[in-house]
């Protein structure tokens, strides 16, 4: 395809091949005054002002001076950092895995997505400003009290493994511009049944683990980066049994990163915490078992950092906040829930200095809400990414 060739050519020149050309940035500064500013660490500023300059937050506070010439926006509502989805397929559905090669440590999901895809607009409307593009996982059936009829798993087949064992590096991407924040955010490893095939290796859990151990015995490239701690890992596991294997593997090889997938991973919170890992919580659907929601509160109690996966476009982007609200209902502290959507998620990606909170120096990814952000009755009135408005009305 011509597009791919072009991308490849650009890649070799070292420039960022996948972002849209940035529109000319407006000269000058932007000052947004909001009734409540959520800084992100649980702190809230009443009648706060956020100053934005050159795509970054220059200052935050109550009653800070607005420079002459700055555009001023008055918002009678709440302001917060943009939401971060820890796993998503927007603009990349179907393109994330090479089904014939289960081990591809050099693969980069940065090549799998189309920044102009309409999926991204739906993300913006839900207040989501950054997403992690990951390889597919084709989770085996989750224990739900009642599965809807004909529940369909994309890419699921009985013959070849439907998810790669080593899928490559995930990419942290900005909604709106499609700008790559991190070209290689995490190395994706799968410990799930969906990485096992019938006729193609690996075909069994021991086989898969033996292969992974071998790869990490003499690692190179991305694997070496993971082993040395330069690159975080995502350990995808569908069931709690698989989570235990993944945690043990991480400890064996000194890997740092997060467990993803298992809805009740929180029940193993202590072991996960002891291994120094975080968790990427499974996305929410109405009717999901209460145990899974309570397990998230258990993670918080054990001090395990966590974020939420979204898996759009198969799921509506509103599911991200909906899931957090459901966890709050089942006992999760609202401030911890909010952090999981923003600052904690950023920390898991090693990007806490860049995104996830409203503080000086961070990239200006802001959402202006009509009310308290954790209330589903509130809606994003305007969304800014890197200081540019990507969604919103008259303002």
């Amino acid at each position: 395809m011509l597009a791919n060739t072009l991308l490849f050519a650009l890649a070799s020149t070292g420039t960022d091949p996948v972002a849209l050309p940035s529109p000319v940035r407006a000269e000058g500064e932007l000052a947004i005054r909001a009734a409540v500013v959520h800084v992100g660490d649980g702190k809230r500023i009443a009648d706060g002002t956020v100053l934005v300059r050159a795509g970054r937050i220059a200052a935050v506070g109550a009653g800070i001076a607005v420079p002459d010439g700055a555009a001023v926006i008055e918002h009678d509502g709440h302001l917060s950092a943009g939401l971060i989805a820890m796993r998503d397929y927007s603009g990349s559905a179907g393109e994330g895995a090479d089904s014939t090669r289960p081990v591809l440590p050099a693969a980069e999901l940065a090549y799998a997505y189309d920044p102009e895809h309409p999926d991204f607009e739906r993300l913006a409307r839900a207040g989501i400003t950054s997403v992690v593009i990951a390889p597919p996982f084709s989770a085996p059936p989750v224990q739900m009290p009642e599965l809807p009829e004909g529940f369909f798993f994309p890419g699921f087949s009985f013959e070849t493994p439907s998810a790669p064992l080593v899928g490559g590096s995930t990419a942290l991407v900005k909604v709106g511009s499609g700008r790559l924040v991190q070209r290689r955010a995490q190395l994706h490893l799968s410990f799930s049944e969906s990485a096992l095939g019938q006729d193609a290796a690996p075909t069994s859990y021991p086989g898969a683990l033996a292969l992974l151990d071998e790869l990490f015995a003499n690692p190179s490239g991305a694997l070496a980066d993971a082993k040395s701690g330069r690159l975080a890992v995502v350990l995808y596991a569908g069931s709690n049994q698989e989570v235990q294997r993944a945690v043990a593997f991480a400890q064996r090889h000194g890997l740092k990163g997060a467990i993803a997938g298992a809805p009740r991973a929180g029940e193993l919170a202590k072991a996960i915490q002891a291994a120094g890992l975080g968790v990427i919580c499974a996305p929410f659907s109405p009717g999901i078992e209460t145990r899974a929601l309570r397990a998230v509160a258990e993670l918080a109690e054990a001090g395990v950092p966590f974020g939420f996966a979204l898996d759009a476009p198969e799921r509506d982007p509103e599911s991200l906040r909906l899931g957090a609200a459901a966890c709050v209902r089942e006992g999760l502290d609202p401030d911890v829930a909010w952090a999981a959507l923003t600052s904690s998620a950023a920390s898991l990606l090693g990007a806490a200095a860049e995104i996830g909170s409203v503080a000086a120096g961070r990239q200006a990814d802001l959402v202006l809400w009509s009310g308290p952000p954790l209330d589903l009755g509130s809606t994003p009135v305007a969304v800014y990414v890197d200081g540019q408005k990507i969604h919103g009305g008259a303002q």
Partner: protein
Amino acid sequence: MHLALPRLSAGVLAAAALAWASPELLARGTRAHANGAQEAPEGGALFVRAAKVIVRPGEVLADAGIIVQDGVIVAVGAGLERPAGAREIAGEVVCAGFLDPWSTLGLDRGALRDERTSPASPTADALDLYGDDHLRLDAARAGVTSARLQAGEKSSVGGLGVVVRNAPDLERERALVVEDAGVAASVGLSVGQSRGRGPSVKDVFDRVKDVEKLGDLIEAGRKYHEDWVEYGYEIAEWEKAIAEKEAELEKDFKKAQKAREKEVEDAKEKGKEHKEKKYKEDKRPKKPKLDEDKEVMARVARGELPLLVEVHRAAEIRHLLELTAHFDQLRLVLCGATEALPLAEELAERDVAVIVWPSPLGTDRADHLRKHDLALAGRLAAAGVGVLLGSGGESAATRDLPLLAGLAIGHGLDREAAFAALTEGAARALDVADRLGTLERGKDADLLVLDGEPLVSTTRVRYAVVAGEVVVTPDN
């Protein structure tokens, strides 16, 4: 159960007798609530106190209390005192428990997918009041204290739905609020499933047939009712005629007897067979055949039971509206109604309520849900349509209804309208408004004690009272 014939309603007699016998039941009928402590009985079972009591949408009492006894609210008002011996629970806000008008929570699993249901199929017989207790408790903890359940939920004709309370360990009599909450039907839903492929779309001709079949059913019900009414008149006439004729014959009895004896003898002499004189009154009017399904549909056609139809596509909604236009007593409620917006004006005019399912759906959705949009509830309400909110018939999702309501609010539905939809609105549509939906004297004690405004996603339910019993406390 026989059709109540129009002349004399046994029901009316029975109701009168019952009301006469039990003053407590009389009290149930009263709507006014006390504005003082005067009628609070001693030793009331439960006293609920809150900074804000939402009696009904738009009617709020500050620093008020509610006294509950034997499962019923006996007093509501500001300045009430806790009766001696009563347990007290308190919180920020008290409101009526939520009613999910589109749920399957607590139904036997087989009944859910039953496609051979007919209008008289009683969902009451398909209840599994002992299994799934944890799901019921989850729903109560989220504030949904009752639900309308439907066997054969996705089949083209469902059955008699029920309204049931969500509390674990509740005996059948107290759990079942009403055994005939309405008849359900569906039009144009995708059928069956093949493993790994998802449901297949019902072809358009079958979908048209769905609507027509429904129209035929209602017509059959209406005709059945007419036949029985007519029979009622005919029987009355006939009995009157018989009586008259008998009286007439009584008068000239001897003469007629002599005349008959003479005829018999004449016939004997002539060797002919004597034919008895036939009176036209001998012919008794023919009784229509009893049919339980048609009986139920007759109640639907008369507007006694609502008809809840799950339908999504605009063309099918329009067809359904056309087909039912001449049944002017029919109470139609649409479930889902994904593409109803272009028909909003007609729906508002004809007082057709819509139960919206404000669930977030991704790209992997059934064909009839192609245009599913979270903004539907708000837009229909703005156009004057009566909007209700339901969890779409996925049993465990009843628990998440308040969050889904939050989503609908975020996408344009007025907050007060959403609250009304989950309480008074749903109760009215399902004919249980005399027992549920608002906090008034005489109504059942299904209520929530919250730590904040209802339907704000971060508000938690501290206590949930179902049928007068405290089912949820901060400890569970």
